[in-house]
C-alpha cells in the first residue's frame, strides 16, 4: 500500500506531485501501530477507552497513562507515540488553563478541540519540525449549551466531532463494531458504552498473536457531576467479565453453526 516517496517524503514542508504530504501520512501510520483507542458519545455523557499493550512481563502497568483530565469538564485520550501524545495533552492543559484566566469560565470542548487541532497542524507546516505521531480524542461537557461532545484530532491537524470513533491498531474492526451499534440513531448510556468498549477491545484481541494488555477507561456524565473521571475498578471488572461472557457465547454459537452445517 505504501507508495515510494521517492524524494518527496523527506520533509513535511514538501508536497508530492500528486498533492500529498508523505510525512503526515507516515505519521498517521505510526498511530496505526499503537494500542486501540475508542470513544463513544452517549445519551448521558462520553466514554473513552484505550488499550495499553503490556510490552514486558516486568512492566509496572499502571505507570504509563493514556487518558488525562485536561480540565474538570474535559478529558483527553491518546494513542500512537506516547511521548508525542503527552506533548499534545500538555498543550491541551495549557490551553484550558489560560482560557479560564482570560475568559473566566471553563473552556468549551469544541474550542479546546479546535485549539489542539491548530497546534497539531502547526507541526505539519515546518521543515524543521516533524508531525506528531499520535491521535487524541477529546471528551468534554460544554457548560453553556449543557451538552457533552466527542472529538478526535489526527496527526494532520484536523478535528472532527463524532458519535463514536476509533484509532490505533484495531481501528478498522473497531469502527465496524461501532457502526453496528448505530450510535447516530439511538445513543446508548455510559454504563452500556463501558461494556461495549470492553467487548470490542476483547473481540479484536488475538490471544495467540497479541501481547497481554491493560484497558484504561474513563467517563464524563451526569452521574459524575460532568467531571472527567476514571471508571471505578469494580465497574470495569464487571464490564470485562460481561465482555468475556459475550465472546464465549459468540464462540459457542459459531461451533453450533458449524456442527449444523456438517450434518
Amino acid at each position: 500500500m505504501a507508495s515510494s516517496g521517492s524524494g518527496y517524503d523527506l520533509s513535511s514542508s514538501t508536497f508530492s506531485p500528486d498533492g500529498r504530504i508523505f510525512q503526515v501520512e507516515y505519521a498517521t501510520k505510526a498511530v496505526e501501530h499503537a494500542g486501540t483507542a475508542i470513544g463513544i458519545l452517549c445519551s448521558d455523557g462520553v466514554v473513552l477507552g484505550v488499550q495499553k499493550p503490556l510490552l514486558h512481563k516486568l512492566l509496572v502497568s499502571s505507570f504509563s497513562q493514556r487518558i488525562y483530565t485536561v480540565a474538570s469538564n474535559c478529558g483527553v485520550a491518546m494513542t500512537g507515540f506516547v511521548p508525542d501524545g503527552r506533548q499534545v495533552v500538555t498543550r491541551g492543559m495549557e490551553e484550558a488553563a489560560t482560557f479560564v484566566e482570560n475568559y473566566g469560565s471553563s473552556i468549551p470542548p469544541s474550542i479546546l478541540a479546535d485549539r489542539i487541532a491548530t497546534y497539531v497542524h502547526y507541526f505539519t507546516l515546518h521543515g524543521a519540525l516533524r508531525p506528531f505521531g499520535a491521535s487524541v480524542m477529546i471528551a468534554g461537557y460544554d457548560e453553556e449549551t449543557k451538552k457533552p461532545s466527542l472529538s478526535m484530532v489526527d496527526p494532520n491537524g484536523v478535528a472532527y466531532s463524532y458519535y463514536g470513533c476509533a484509532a490505533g491498531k484495531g481501528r478498522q474492526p473497531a469502527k465496524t463494531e461501532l457502526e453496528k451499534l448505530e450510535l447516530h440513531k439511538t445513543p446508548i448510556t455510559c454504563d452500556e458504552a463501558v461494556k461495549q468498549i470492553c467487548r470490542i477491545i476483547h473481540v479484536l484481541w488475538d490471544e495467540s498473536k497479541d501481547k497481554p494488555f491493560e484497558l484504561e477507561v474513563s467517563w464524563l456524565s451526569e452521574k459524575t457531576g460532568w467531571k472527567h473521571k476514571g471508571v471505578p475498578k469494580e465497574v470495569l471488572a464487571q464490564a470485562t467479565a460481561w465482555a468475556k461472557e459475550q465472546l464465549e457465547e459468540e464462540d459457542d454459537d459459531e461451533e453450533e453453526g458449524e456442527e449444523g452445517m456438517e450434518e
Partner: protein
Amino acid sequence: ANKMMSSMTMAAAAPPTQFDVPNVSDPALYCRSNFASACGNSDAAQTVKFAKGTTTLAFKFNGGIIVSVDSRSTMGAYIASGTVQKVIEINPFLLGTMAGGAADCSFWERNLGTQCRLYELRNGKRISVASASKLLANTMSSYRGYGLSMGTMVTGWDETGPQLYYVDDDGTRLKGKYFSVGSGSTYAYGVLDTHYRDDLTVEEAIDLGKRAIYHATHRDAASGGINNLYHVTKEGWIKVHAIDVNDMHYQFKEERESGMAN
C-alpha cells in the same frame, strides 16, 4: 515554536502596543500622583479635574435587564456636558455603562467590542457575558496602578440567560442582580433596594429604572441631564427612552400631589 504558537492561538485583540507615557523616570508613580482616581475627592488638589460625576444603574429581572443612566459630566463645579451617552453599545447584544473617566470607559469598552468580535470570528459563536466581562477585568488588572478610572457594568443576554457583571479599574469583577455606580449611586440604591423584585413586569421595571435615576439626579449635583434607559432581551437590547429629568420632576410632583389628595 511555543512563543509563536502563543501569539497565534491565544492573543485576543491586543490593546495598542505603545502608549505615550510621561517622559519621567517612573511613569506609573507620576500617573498615580497626578491623575488621581476619580473615586472620592483624591483629586481635590488638582487644578484641572477629571470629567466624572454620574449615576448609572442596571438590574436583572425575569423579563431581562434594565440599564438606566444619567447624562451629566462635571469637571469640579463646572458642568462640562449635559448630553453624554453613558451607555456604550458594545455590540447588538452587549451593553456597557460609563462611570469614572469618560475617556477610559469609552476607549476600553470599544476595545472590548473588538475583542468580542474576534472571539466570534475565531470560535464561530457569540461570546458569553461572563467571558466578555473577564476580558475587560483582565485589561484593567494589567493596567493597575497606572491611574485608569472606570466603573462599569457589562450586561447582556447569552446562552445562560440574562447576565450582569460589575467591573472596575482595580480589576474587580462581580456578578450580581443589580448594581449602581457613580457619585449618585447611594440615592439610586435607596430606591432600588426598596422596590426591586425578581418578578417585576417590563413596565414596572422601566418605571423603577426611571425613578431611581430621577431621585439620584435630584439630590446629587454631579448627576443630571437626560435619563437614557435600555432594555436587554433575548433578541438583544433596545433603547426604551431618553427623558429629561426635569420633566420627570414635574411628573412625579403631580403624582405625589394627587396621591396626597387621595
